[in-house]
């Protein structure tokens, strides 16, 4: 019980602290790849601290939906941090749901953020909301079908169960279906977290924005919460990719040595994924908005192929 509680605290702390660091690292890497010195990896911390100390300006048009949304976003991600196997395979809330719950938790956040985008009554916000829900809706089938592929292989869709099963029998991972599912999930991760080529997180042009357009109205501590939540979401998605598809080193029991080892293994895997993401983001341009569905349809096809492969190579 106490060990579980400690593990839960560690998970939340790792995700809460790791999110901004991950985003900072990604920015640094991207800057280095285009020949800039770039910000320090821990720059997002300074940004968040500064934002927390600032006043906020709130539009008179908005309602309570706009004001609670940052808290809802943070809450959904924090709860998700207790479901995803980050440093232990069965975190505190693992019993409360599986990846379907996780997917719908993120959808809860998207739902509120999209409403907040509409709440100020500006055309930018509405545009962002409309696009965000379109992308989120199209990403949904890929996630479930990719998970279905994993469930075929592991015989369970409890996240902890999948991780333990693959960790116990590493040969299960060596399967074309597994790699296809990974590729499908990677594309969905890009769409869900608003990275290139689906959405450009550092754009200044409102007409090309998706995620940014919805948060244009936020300021001060509310903006800090939104940014923190979205960085944690990126962290969690990358962790899912790392631990679900390459589940080595995630400890099943909660004791100091394996947890530290697990954290180190996770850091290593995340570093690889972050470098990959940075290289990808510097070498491709943003897709035209109405080409994004084609990308997502492609990822869905990958997921279906992976199911077929798993099925045939059973």
């Amino acid at each position, binding site marked *: 019980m106490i060990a579980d509680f400690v593990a839960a605290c560690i998970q939340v702390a790792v995700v809460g602290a790791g999110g901004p660091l991950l985003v900072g690292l990604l920015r640094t890497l991207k800057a280095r790849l285009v020949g800039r010195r770039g910000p320090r990896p821990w720059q997002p911390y300074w940004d968040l601290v500064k934002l927390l100390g600032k006043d906020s300006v709130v539009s008179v048009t908005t309602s309570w939906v706009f004001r609670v949304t940052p808290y809802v976003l943070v*809450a959904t991600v924090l709860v998700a941090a207790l479901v995803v196997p980050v440093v232990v395979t069965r975190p505190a809330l693992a019993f409360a749901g599986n990846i379907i719950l996780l997917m719908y938790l993120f959808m809860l956040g998207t739902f509120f953020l999209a409403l907040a985008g509409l709440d100020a009554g500006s055309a930018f916000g509405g545009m962002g909301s409309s696009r965000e829900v379109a992308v989120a*809706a199209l990403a949904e089938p890929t996630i479930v079908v990719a998970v279905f592929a994993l469930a075929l292989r592991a015989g369970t869709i409890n996240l902890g169960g999948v991780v333990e099963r693959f960790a116990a029998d590493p040969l299960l991972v060596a399967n074309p279906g597994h790699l296809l599912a990974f590729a499908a999930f990677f594309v969905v991760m890009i769409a869900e977290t608003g990275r290139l080529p689906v959405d450009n997180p550092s754009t200044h042009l409102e007409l090309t924005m998706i995620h940014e357009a919805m948060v244009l109205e936020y300021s001060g501590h509310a903006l800090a919460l939104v940014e923190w939540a979205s960085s944690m979401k990126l962290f969690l998605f990358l962790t899912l990719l790392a631990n679900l598809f390459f589940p080595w080193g995630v400890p099943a029991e909660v004791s100091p040595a394996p947890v530290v080892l697990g954290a180190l293994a996770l850091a290593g895997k995340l570093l690889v994924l972050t470098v990959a993401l940075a290289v990808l983001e510097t070498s491709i341009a943003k897709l035209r908005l109405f080409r994004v569905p084609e990308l997502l349809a492609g990822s869905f096809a990958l997921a279906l192929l992976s199911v077929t492969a798993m099925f045939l190579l059973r």
Partner: protein
Amino acid sequence: MVSLAYVLAVGGGLAAALLGLAGIAGTTFTVRAPGLLPLGGLEFALDPLSGFFLVLIGGAAVPASIYALGYGSNERRGVLVYNVFVASMCAVPLAANALTFLLAWELMSLASYVLVVQSGEREAVSAAWVYAVMTHAGLACLLAGMLLLGAWTGSFRFADWSATASALPSWGGSLAFSLLALGFATKAGVIPLHVWLPLAHPAAPSHVSALMSGVMIKLGVYGLIRIGLDWLGDGPAWWGVAVMLAGIVSAVAGVLYALVEHDLKRLLAFHSIENVGIILIGLGAGMLFHLADLPALALLGFAAALYHTMNHAAFKALLFLGAGAVQHGTGTRNMEEMGGLIKRMPWTAAAFLVGSAAIAALPPLNGFVSEWLTFQALLQTLKIDRPEVNLVFALGIAGLALTSGLAMACFVKAFGITFLALPRSESAARAHEAGGAMRTGMGLLVLACVALGLAPTLVVPALARIGADVMRVPPPVDVGGWLTLHVSGEFASLSTLAVAAALLAALALPAAVLALAGVGRRRRLYETWGCGRLLQTARMEYTATAFANPFKRIFDFFYRPATQLDIEAHPESRFFVTRIEYANPTRSLVEDWLYRPALSALHRGARRARAIQSGSANLYLIYILAALLALLVLA
């Protein structure tokens, strides 16, 4: 007087719900009046499944009738019919023979027809006409199917059918199944038999729409459960496949239609089609698992279907009541004329938000639980060792996921455009909040949505017992404790209670920490950022049409939108535009490819047939003679 009638309906609803609970708990009884009418007379029986639907009807009638006390208390028309409607709906699941069933079914259809037509508006009258045609086409199918079964089994009692169905030839069972399924699917609003639903539901008063969408179409589902699992015994696998495919098509197409619909009540009506689809996906999974002799999984699919039936009754009734309050407060159903209602109608807005979150399957509310259960059933398809069935299940998984994503998008639109930002019209700016009775009705349903979301561990075992009774299999042994629901042992588990507690804690903790640290205390109100422009007006807001536009473009093969642009220029120069009119209507595949050809064929046939209607008495005598001769020869 009017109020008294609605109070009576509340009492009736409570009584029905209590009776239904007794039925679920295992009480059974039969009431017979054989001599009263031919074909076996009236006969009513209570069993767990009919008890479940009684609970549903009673449970939805109570809040709807309380709401009606505030909504329609100065409207005398339709009060009596409303009571008849509720009573006949209660009679349908209780009916134990064909005649009783058909009488109750037709009474229900007629009562709802009268309720749809009663406003007398042109739109309502034409909607009611389509409704009457479709529902009677459905009735004809039911009648044919039931008469066939009666002739083959020699009895019109449902209990006899279940006992003797296995003796039927397989083609006979399939024919009866097809006919009855067509009839029930028409009532349930399964695509492509749904055309009446988005017309008729919005035309009725909102408490009636709530019952029609929340409960009445579920009686179609009731019929499908009966024919799929009870009356006709175990059928071939294609029954289950057909049910599931119909479910997938209805779910995806229903939500796609809803996305481009900007009449609030019509949007909700299309979502009813979508949700019936989700129910049928679960039911189809249950049927297929049942045929594959996997009772535990069959119960899982069945419980998911019943759970979603109940949940849909709760949140759809809530949403229709909310839409009614909006219509009451603003005088319009067109979302493009709404906006900003959250400030004028805070209670309605909060209730509608809960309903929207529930129908979008967001945790920890009820819609999430039943969709989760459906997913768990679908994901275990590999236990059936038939690739073609697995493929259908995989389609179901993808379809359900797409549906839930699109439903979330649609309810962002429904809530966001209706309630948030600035009012888009004078009437929305002057909207008024719903009265106490209406708010009570909505409040009860909000409680139902939350309770059904948090208590799956109480509900699922009860539903599984109902399923065990219908399918005649032993009930599942272990589905987890009070906190956690377990599905198929280690396969998956869910605890919405824990998720809700964690969400609350995760909401409260950061807020408390920030408040203690003194962060966010200073807040300044200022206008929306618009790049420094002078005045923000509602015309700068995103509209419902604009919001749905990405979907129109992504799914253009489905919508086939036609752009109509009408520009009126100044006479002096075409560069000075005085008026621009833009319309982007979508076309319905079903209407273009199914109903329009069918109707024109019907018209052509009727024109041909006119030749024999000359008006001459001699000619008619010859017809009678010919008919008599033909009968004599055939006999």
